[in-house]
């Protein structure tokens, strides 16, 4: 029995509620990486602007002060940008470990914190290298996404430049970016299912490597559109909650120490929700992968 979209979503939510400790641990790691970069960024900014009150005005919403600061301290913001990029790259690499851990937990369904932690650590460690290989193999998959993105942007550039109404802005944007967005969903779904199969089947099918898993996942994703829809729903949630937060936060000054803390809490709440949704999607993917037929075994040639 192949689960439908609703079942996948529900089983994901159940799995997350069952392993809240794991989710929080993931989030702590996420925070450590993000705020590791954040501390460096803070130090760079403080070094440049701790004696410059104009920077305070810029942060507090004075648009012209912001332009003046950005324009007169380009090197500072260049450094900040690269620290942020470094954090993203670090998170991608750590993600190979974390994804292995999460998938192992949802595959083995351990009980108790200690057992879950053991399963998570062992799964992360044992799959780190194969996920790294998978990332290399599927790097090529991202090329069509980039191609479609640039093609789409190039195609809609003129229409965006001449847009006079919201419709004239939004429709070309959707049309121009949709192919790349769909391609991205496909590629990320393929990678997800390749990872899930590697975790689920590798213990019994040692010959299943990253390349084979990627090819098998590609075929599978196109045969099972529910897999794509499932990930598509996640991306809608991700974009929706991000935009909703941006919309609600816009124009609301949260000044002072209390305001800053409240804003920090809200932002991290949004980040936690997005991460929770991602983990729920992974849980659903494990369920769906379990219904897939295993890869054929390679029979060793007979001796003699």
């Amino acid at each position, binding site marked *: 029995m192949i689960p439908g979209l609703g079942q996948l979503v529900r089983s994901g939510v159940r799995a997350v509620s069952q392993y809240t400790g794991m989710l929080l641990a993931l989030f702590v790691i996420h925070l450590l990486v993000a705020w590791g970069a954040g501390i460096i960024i803070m130090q760079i900014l403080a070094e440049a602007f701790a004696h410059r009150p104009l920077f305070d005005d810029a942060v507090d919403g004075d*648009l012209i002060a912001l332009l003046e600061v950005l324009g007169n301290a380009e090197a500072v913001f260049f450094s900040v940008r690269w620290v942020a990029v470094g954090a993203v790259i670090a998170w991608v690499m750590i993600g190979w470990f974390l994804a292995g851990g999460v998938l192992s937990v949802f595959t083995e369904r351990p009980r108790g914190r200690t057992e879950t932690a053991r399963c998570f650590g062992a799964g992360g460690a044992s799959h780190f290298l194969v996920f790294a290989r998978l990332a290399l193999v599927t790097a090529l998959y991202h090329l069509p996404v980039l191609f479609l993105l640039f093609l789409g942007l190039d195609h809609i550039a003129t229409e965006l430049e001449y847009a006079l109404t919201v419709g004239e802005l939004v*429709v070309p944007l959707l049309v121009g970016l949709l192919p790349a967005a769909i391609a991205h969903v496909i590629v990320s779904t393929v990678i997800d299912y390749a990872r899930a199969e590697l975790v689920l089947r590798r213990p019994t099918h040692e010959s299943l490597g990253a390349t084979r898993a990627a090819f098998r996942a590609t075929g599978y994703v196109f045969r099972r559109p529910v897999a794509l829809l499932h990930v598509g729903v996640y991306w809608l949630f991700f974009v929706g909650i991000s935009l909703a937060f941006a919309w609600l936060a816009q124009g609301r000054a949260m000044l002072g120490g209390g305001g800053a803390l409240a804003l920090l809490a809200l932002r991290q709440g949004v980040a936690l929700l997005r991460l929770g949704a991602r983990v729920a999607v992974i849980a659903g993917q494990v369920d769906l992968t379990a219904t897939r037929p295993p890869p054929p075994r390679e029979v060793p040639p007979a001796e003699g």
Partner: protein
Amino acid sequence: MRARRALLLCAALLVGAAACESSLGPPRQRPAPAPDGVPALLTPGPRSSRIASYKIDARYDAVARKLDATAILTWTNTGASAVDTLPFHLYLNGFKNESTLFMRSSGGRHRGETADERAWGWIEVSSIQVGALELRPKARYVGPDETVLEVPLPAPVQPGAIVEVKLVYTAQLPRVFARTGYQGAFAMVAQWFPKIGVRVGTPGFETWHCKPFHVNTEFFADFGVYDVTLTVPQTHVVAATGVLVAAQDHDDGTRTLAYRAEDVHDFAWMIDPYMEVMSGVARVDGKDVIVRVVHRPRQRAFARRHLAAAIGAVEHFSELFVPYPWSIMTIVDPPPDAGGAGGMEYPTLVTTAGDHVLVRDGIRVPEYVTIHEVGHNWFQGILASNEVEAGYLDEGVNEWADAVVMHRMYGQKASALSWKGWSAEVFRLRRAIDRDAYRVPTPIATAAYAFVDFDGYASVTYGKTMAALRTLENVVGSQTFAEAMKRYAQTHAFQHPDGGDLLQALEATVGEDLAWFWQPAFYQPGGVDFAVRSAECNPAHAPRGVFGEGERRNLVTAAEKTGGWTCDVVVVNLGVVPVPVDVELRFADGSREVERWDARDGSRWHRFTFARSAPIVEVAIDPERKVLLAANPLDDRVRLTPNTDASWRASSRIVFWTQGLMQAVAP
């Protein structure tokens, strides 16, 4: 299966939505427009010496975007020396090929628009007659291209004499990328007729000013009267300089429109089959000036904004300088894909820009463009300075005036922006955008074509000039400065003022020699560059050491602290322009003290020493941001003890964005 259907439905909806693009349909027959029924000038009677007047009869081919025309120039020699040649600008030849000075100096690009190599523009004069004499064979191009045609006269034109020249020509419009040309059915027809140069120089030794067309240079011409008849398709709407005096339909589907403009130095027009007109009235000296915005239907919402801005501009410029002298002000809002035509000024007719969905109400980009272009009717339209040799006198002075007008219209704090809690003042916003102006190695008072590059020309001529004038205004006082600018405008209306005339008007009103500012600000690269070099406070105590002599000698090794503080602050100006400036010192007990550093003596640094009950916590040079001519305002305010609160807040925000990116790519 359901999932597959849902995917297909989503795709179909999006493709369908994309296909819903409105079409303007084929051009339709338009009734002949009624003549405007107003005189060209609000108050009839010549305002200028009317040196160069034209009668032009042109027929427009809407398919080939070509004009066949005859122009009769009546030129008066108002100089003290005889004239034996007449030079004519043939601006359209600047778009003739890649070897023209315009194309070489622009690289085929102008304000973000690119020339279309399949749609060149040119003008060809087939006949030049003075009396019955045909002079075309003797005419020759002078300069690096074919944008200046010099015609030797059979006999010199003596001082005070008048010569009438008949020119027959054909003009091919380029696809628009630099002010003039067509895009689809729309055409902005400017720089479209042979235009005589201007005699300049000391009486008795005048020479022609008729430079080849360069990307940085705009225009310079004598005032005159223009009587222009345009024969165009009956399907098309025309907007032109001056007033419409007659319209006559012909059986061949064409229509002849007759326009008259008085005391103007240029004539431009627009033609398009889809335009509609929105009208309003500006009150000037108790009289009505008709203000029109000509626009495509889908730009109606922006046309309302342009109209309100134009009416305000006509009224405020009239109050601030001299009353608008003409009966009509027309604003052409080009279609979005004809951006190359936007943002240009001609007498009584300007083109605007800034229409975009993201430019919401309160983001005053369309208003700013309209006010700027309408403002050019004073700074170049009425005060016809030489845009080629002194671009700052129209662009820069106009920028300053635009900002003053926007302050009056929208309030100072939100003169440039008032949207979703964001606000911006136009002078400071321009300074923030034009910060590169202080790194340009060319001073303000430089011929447009002699600038290091187009970006340098633009940032210095527009932004730096505005900042310099605003800085001077803040030094001498707004009221005095406004009086000076009014005096300049009234004294030199319908003449060709130069930088000296402006300075003279300012000095005469202010009552002091302004060379201390004018010379470095306008004739040297760079600007003001303030910084706090050092700021230090130490606990004050009675002096230690050896005091007195002989038996009275006393050694003081330990002195009691007085409880006060001794503070020492050094501020510097590393720029080239000395400006008097306030320095605000903020103390730990919350008190503030403002000191004046009057750098007009040429000093480059100044030391302030204080004895106070509390130490200094912050030094702010120019706390009220009066010195706009400053390169880097980041160094103008310094806090003595570091505060990282803002760095934490900014980091928190950047980390949240980074988290979004991280979660979008992994795990």
